[in-house]
């Protein structure tokens, strides 16, 4: 009861514009959530008629605006279209000339690109796809239900598809410009980076191993369970762990698969068993296994925290090849890098928050004095600094 009164008071304050930021946020997020919960409104309504109907009511209520909604005849419409195309063309030309003339960071502002955010889908084994809320940061998978990490249910899927405690395969997908966190049935945590895919079962019980499949990049914090090794399959390799923290980077469009350990140890095994002798390595903290192609496995010492910094919302580059930096930008900002000079191997150093617009990253990289960028729509043109 107290709740209802509080709610009414809050709503009233909100509508009278007397709310502070936090209270406004509560009302607005509740409103958004109601919208998400509502089912699709099916209607055969003729929207053209509705448009006219509402307009005639507006005109009645506020007598000043012109009564005719659609005044122009066909000839005028045709003429206006031609004129519009002309204007559009002129704008295009004008913009191009501007771009060619001079390109400074201040101009960048109007032409910036926002960072990625929490976005992902979950595909059930019956092919059903659930869009995960961009208002949440993660999902908890349990043998018989799916919930967001703040305890709220994922709409209408829980009871339906995961009811029986039998094993079902789920696939989590993040798009370019998306990331998401998943808590697996054994309590292990997985952070999925942009443009990545993780396949896992709804329950691990009954199986000897806890097995998942990854393509793209993910950071794992695995719960300890010595009896049931946790195994990550990715392109060309298998990573076996008992309980530890590690990062796997295995994008199809990049040559190497990199496994990096932040805590504990893991064993990396080549799936191409023809290579006797080097077919598996055990990695310790701050070691990274680099699998090139399907056959060549090398181990090197790295700063593991730096490699997993994406998970904490940072880009940290320490003498990193520009080509690799731009691959990350491509996935996180959903842009297309275009190298105009051959400088993919140029090594750069810098750090910046992943939640900045792309101009922030570009400024940081330009500050090295070695490279210049230009944003053109969704393309990032990259040139050697003169």
């Amino acid at each position, binding site marked *: 009861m107290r709740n209802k009164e509080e709610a009414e008071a809050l709503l*009233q304050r909100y509508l009278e514009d007397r709310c502070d930021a936090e209270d406004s*946020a509560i*009302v*607005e997020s509740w409103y958004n959530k109601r919208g998400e919960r509502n089912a699709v409104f099916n209607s055969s309504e003729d929207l053209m008629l*509705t448009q006219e109907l*509402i307009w005639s009511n507006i005109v009645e209520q506020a007598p000043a605006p*012109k009564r005719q909604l659609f005044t122009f005849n066909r000839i005028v419409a045709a003429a206006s279209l031609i004129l519009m195309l002309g204007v559009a063309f002129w704008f295009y030309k004008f913009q191009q000339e501007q771009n060619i003339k001079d390109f400074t960071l201040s101009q960048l502002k109007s032409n910036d690109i926002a960072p990625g955010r929490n976005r992902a889908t979950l595909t059930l084994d019956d092919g059903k796809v659930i869009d995960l809320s961009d208002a949440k940061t993660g999902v908890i998978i349990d043998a018989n239900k799916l919930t967001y990490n703040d*305890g709220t249910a994922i709409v209408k899927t829980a009871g339906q598809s995961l009811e029986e405690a039998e094993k079902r395969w789920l696939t989590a997908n993040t798009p370019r410009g998306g990331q998401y966190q998943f808590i697996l049935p054994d309590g292990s945590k997985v952070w999925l980076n942009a443009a990545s895919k993780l396949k896992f079962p709804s329950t691990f019980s009954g199986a000897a191993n806890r097995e998942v499949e990854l393509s793209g990049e993910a950071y794992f914090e695995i719960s300890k369970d010595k009896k049931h090794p946790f195994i990550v399959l990715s392109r060309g390799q298998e990573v076996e762990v008992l309980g530890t923290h590690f990062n796997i980077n295995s994008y199809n469009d990049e040559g190497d698969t990199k496994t990096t350990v932040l805590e504990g140890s893991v064993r990396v095994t080549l799936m191409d068993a023809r290579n006797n002798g080097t077919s598996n390595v055990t990695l310790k903290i701050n070691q990274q296994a680099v699998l090139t192609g399907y056959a060549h496995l090398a181990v090197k010492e790295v700063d593991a925290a730096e490699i997993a910094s994406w998970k904490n919302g940072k880009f940290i580059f320490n003498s990193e090849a520009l080509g690799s930096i731009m691959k990350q930008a491509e996935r996180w900002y959903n*842009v297309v890098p275009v190298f105009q000079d051959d400088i993919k191997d140029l090594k750069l150093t810098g750090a910046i928050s992943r939640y900045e617009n792309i101009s922030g990253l570009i400024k940081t990289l330009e500050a090295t004095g070695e490279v210049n960028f230009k944003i053109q729509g969704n393309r990032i043109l990259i040139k050697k600094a003169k």
Partner: protein
Amino acid sequence: MIIYSAHTDQELITLLRKGDHNAFTEIYKRYWSVLYLHARHMLRQEDQARDVIQEVFAAMWNKHTQIELTISLNAYLYKAVRNTILNIIRHGKVKENYLADLGDFIDQEKVETDELVRYNDLKRLIEREILNMPPKMREIFEMSRKEGLSHAEIGARLGISDLTVKKQVSKAVTILRKKFKIPLATLIILLRILP
């Protein structure tokens, strides 16, 4: 002759302040459908949704000389529609249910509200329609409109022909136009405001 559909929102507001009827008509044509479909989705009643849109636009005209926008036009309209809907909810028949629901929400959801309210405008509504497209079509459409890739570039990336890409893009545009019942020029403007 002035072509209103080629004006930016900012220009339309400037004209509206001076009492330009055509600017007002253009704003209505540009935004009524997205707002209406949103109101209908929230209220689940066509007549109430019509009232909301009518009220918001009539109010806008009635005070057109004083309109000072500190936020974008689409965010302004969305806010006006949301407040009107909340007002209806507050006085409506099912008020008790809504209030109980909001009451529960206040208790549970203290955290993360910042994230939730970042998407407070029409972009989200159009985005939702794009999300409802068949996956392949959506992928192609987003590459085309958001990444600005050419049909040939998309074709190369996905390993399909230019023609298939072109067909999918035009199908997607048709779906959006049907859904929002708006002219092509308006659709292009709306798509440009997508993130």
